[in-house]
């Protein structure tokens, strides 16, 4: 099993619903984003195209971060290829941040940071520390909502089909631009889309074999 994602750029409007869903799902601390949307343009006036890329950790098959990690904290999960970081083993050296060509990783430094600076942590931030505590001094990034996948599978749900077993960014997308499934299943929807619409990873030239593909 290898979880993967396909993003339809014709549908994506760059609304950042995915970014915000990820923020909420994991109670991400201030200034930390596991999911981002890159916006730019190509062409010359008046023939211009807007470029929009919803990005997050690519869960690469040849992850440079794993190679760079001196402690083995960053590794691929055997069962499904998700690249995880073990908080207990991460020493915060941040080599992985330099190694990742997609800048998908963040270092969590200030455990007291407030969303409303100087105004105290809100009830919501405090609840986040109960439901999804983040360890200070370690690197973090998108983990394909592994808790949702694991809990969902345990309940007999299918990731990519059942909302509760699918990453938060995917189900939040209001244009239904994001698809999730098993890259090793030749009959999965995402494999069909990649094949039919000639899906390509973001910057394939980095050679890390990402699990996220973009189609027109």
């Amino acid at each position, binding site marked *: 099993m290898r979880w993967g994602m396909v993003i339809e750029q*014709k549908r994506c409007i760059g609304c950042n619903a995915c970014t915000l869903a990820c923020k*909420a799902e*994991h109670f991400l601390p201030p200034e930390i984003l596991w999911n981002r949307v890159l916006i730019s343009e190509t062409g010359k*006036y008046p023939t211009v195209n807007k470029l929009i890329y919803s990005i997050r950790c690519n869960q690469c098959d040849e992850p440079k971060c794993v190679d760079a990690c001196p402690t083995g904290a960053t590794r691929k999960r055997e069962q499904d290829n998700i690249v995880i970081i073990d908080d207990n083993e991460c020493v915060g050296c941040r080599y992985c941040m330099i190694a990742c060509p997609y800048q998908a990783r963040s270092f969590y430094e200030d455990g007291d940071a407030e969303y409303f600076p100087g105004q105290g942590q809100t009830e919501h931030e405090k609840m986040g520390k109960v*439901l999804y505590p983040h360890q200070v001094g370690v690197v973090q990034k998108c983990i394909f909502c592994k808790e949702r996948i694991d809990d969902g599978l345990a309940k007999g749900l299918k990731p990519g089909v059942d909302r*509760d077993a699918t990453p938060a960014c995917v189900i939040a997308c209001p244009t239904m631009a994001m698809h999730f499934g098993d890259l090793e299943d030749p009959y999965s929807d995402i494999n069909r889309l990649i094949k039919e619409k000639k899906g390509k990873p973001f910057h394939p030239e980095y050679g890390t074999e990402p699990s996220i593909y973009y189609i027109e």
Partner: protein
Amino acid sequence: MGMSVKGKPEIWDDEWVRTTCGGCYATCTIRAHRVNGVVVKIEGEPDNDFGARGGVCGKSQAMIQALYDPNRINYPVRRTNPKKGLFEDPRWERISWDEALDEIARQLKKIREDNPNKLMHGGTPSPGMGPNLPLGFGVFGAVFGTKNWHVGGAGLHCGSGSHMGAGLYHASWSIVPDYKYCNYAIQFGSNKGTGSGHSLGFNMRLSADARARGMKNIVFDPICNFGGGKATEWVPLLPGTDGIIALAMVNVLLNERHIYDAEFLKLKTNGPYLIGPDGRYVRDKATDKPMVWDAKEGKAKTFNDKSVGDFALEGNYEVNGVKCQPSFQIVREHMKQYTPEYASRESTVPAETIRRIANEFGDAAMVGATIEINGQKLPYRPVSSVMFRGGQGHTNSAHSYCALCLLNAIVGAMDVPGGTLGWPPMVLGHPDTGRFKVIPYPCKDGMLTAGTFMEHKPWPIEEPKVPTDQVFKELCPTASFSPQPMTSDFDRYWDKLGRPYEIEMFMVFGSNMARTVQNRDIMEKFLARIPFIVSINLVHNEFTEGFADIVLPDCHPLESWGLFSSHGPFFNWPIGMEGWSFPVRQPVVKPAYERREMIEVLWDIADRIGMREEMNQYYNVYFSSFGGEALISGDLASVRGVKQIDPKKVTQIIKPEEKISFYEMMDRAFKFYFGEKNDLAFIKKHGTIDWPKQVQEAYWRWYVDVRVPIYQEHIAEIKPEVMKAAEKAGVELDWEQFTPLLSYFTPQVSKEISGEFDLYCFSYRDILHTGTYTMNLPWLDEVSQRSPYTYNITMNVDMARKKGLKDGDLICLESPYGRKVTGTLKTMQGQHPQTVAIAACSGAWAKGTPVAFGKGTNFNILLESDFKHACPVSWSQETAATVKVYKTDKRVEFEGVGGKAK
């Protein structure tokens, strides 16, 4: 739990609550997740069409931070600084609810006994605030008896021309392409499905489906961002020239290609109505009905004479001794002047592009084609042209908007599959009860009219009057939201009228008029002299800090009840065959501190001034208008005409003397609409009352015997009376625009382009922001800071180079009136070289929104506010400014912030 959790925290409360979002006007259905008493997640509701079917936008998700914003107002407060002004420190002092309401009631009582018009009331149902604007403030003000209703950002953020036009042509508040069937959509200055707050959820979903299906989407817009960025073809144009492009397309279709839907024009428009040399209808002497020419019998008949064999659209006739011709022929002739070459000179869009798009539109319209849906055969017109804020935000607003409606009308692409749809104006009622029913009907001269109250109900045309209201809507019946009296010319007119009274009190629900209204300096002068201002709000903003005397703490949508999603089906409800869903808003958490439900606060005030009985009566009319037997057929001309309603036609849902809670009122309303079993307890659990839409509701146009005006005879009719009344007030409007023939008028912004003032500056809607409040939400702020555009001023890269400017420069934009704003430059390829653009509503300076403070640029400062800068027909404000641009080293608009002298 349906959410990521780490470890094994103790969970004693884990609920998903179905409700509606309060992030913008769209009020999409959502599910909010509450854990241990705290809202932790918001997701789109997957089980109905009132939204993105499980998807949700970023603003909606950030509403959690709005709910828990430490800047929320928690207690009633009173201003202790007697000085009012943009940068004054209010020096709030906490007071009790009783103290606040007693003081408000004392003032209101005095005013009501004296002259109710001395109360101005208004607000905006967004952002963050409840959708109960009509049920609360609308009803309160109408019952109180004031004519002075002022909407936040009136004439500016709202679509005066588009609401007027959508009312006229679709009996609705706005229009949307029928994404499911449309193959070719033209969008003028709007972000439908890519940012606009209107019907955001389902528009995002449906427009994405349409793009994936291969719908062509042509976007005319000076900037290639949210709308243009998703277009199959982005066509840059100068601001305010959308109308002439639409007119040129009409010309190409009528006079070059001879493509038009004759059947639609004959039966669904006033195209066959005969027009005399005076520009007016030739009317039947006995019945006063407009006449048409029956080409079959070769004689004139009244328009709705059942014996008409063939409505003539062409020819010259003589009826009752008057030479006349069908209006269609006059319109077609009139269009000849709008050549693509002329449109090109005004807009800078190449003539061949305009001609090609017109041809593509005409061909894609498939005039004559039909489609079968659920066994019903209907005209199939898979083309649509739409417009909203940007395209119609100029002094030619009404003509521009109606011009694109004309483009739809000539090919019959109105409320039929594939065409342009209004938000649904026709509901045949819930299957169990037949209630919640609205049916458009033919009013004066057979013209389409909404079947229930709505602000932009064109017929019957009200008589122009010398204004006794300060918003001056009495003067011009076609005016939509009015900028008056927050203008630089109001005093001149009011003086001429002998200053009949002054506004002594202003009650405002939500909104932030110091930042969202054109020109804060003009606004300041107006507000600073109102003795008593009450605001009900979530946080302190530029308006409350600068001008409010008492501020009451409202509930956030996640703490509130809400009966209507906005105003009714004609506002924001899903289009086409998307199902009916009547949503409820319910508290996900109890209101904290002393925050209170706005409607119940207004009832408390009504009790104190002896007005509750009248309000109860009014609610009965209001609810009955969606279900009481006679009212649905249209004799409720406007919600303000309530006193003329025959009481026998009103169902008594609340007894006059009763003092019920909002919860109780909602329960009764639901039972009245949907039957005993569909009470509030039921709807709380399910979130919506759902039932399938019928084809004749979705595509109602050919099921109701109504017509729309391709020739705006009513404008010719009202012109002399408006002129007469205006003269008494000393009001000068551009009278040339009072013509029945849709035309192009150079927008004021273009007239002011001269010498060094060589650029057009406009604002646009960023998808993460609405109103002014969203910029204080840290999640949205973090993302906005990472956007190359949101907090910057954008310009075409070549133009910037020509001016010696580069990315990151601090620049100043200065208008010919000496208004200045500053900000950081970001250059773009995708922007018309003669324009400068700013994301709307940024540039905060209030203490109550510290996250937003100083970020971005407040575009509205650049705008003028007067009749010279208003569309004379719809009263939309000119929302583009002429500017010169240069490098600077200080942010002038923040001088004086912090209570220092300006």
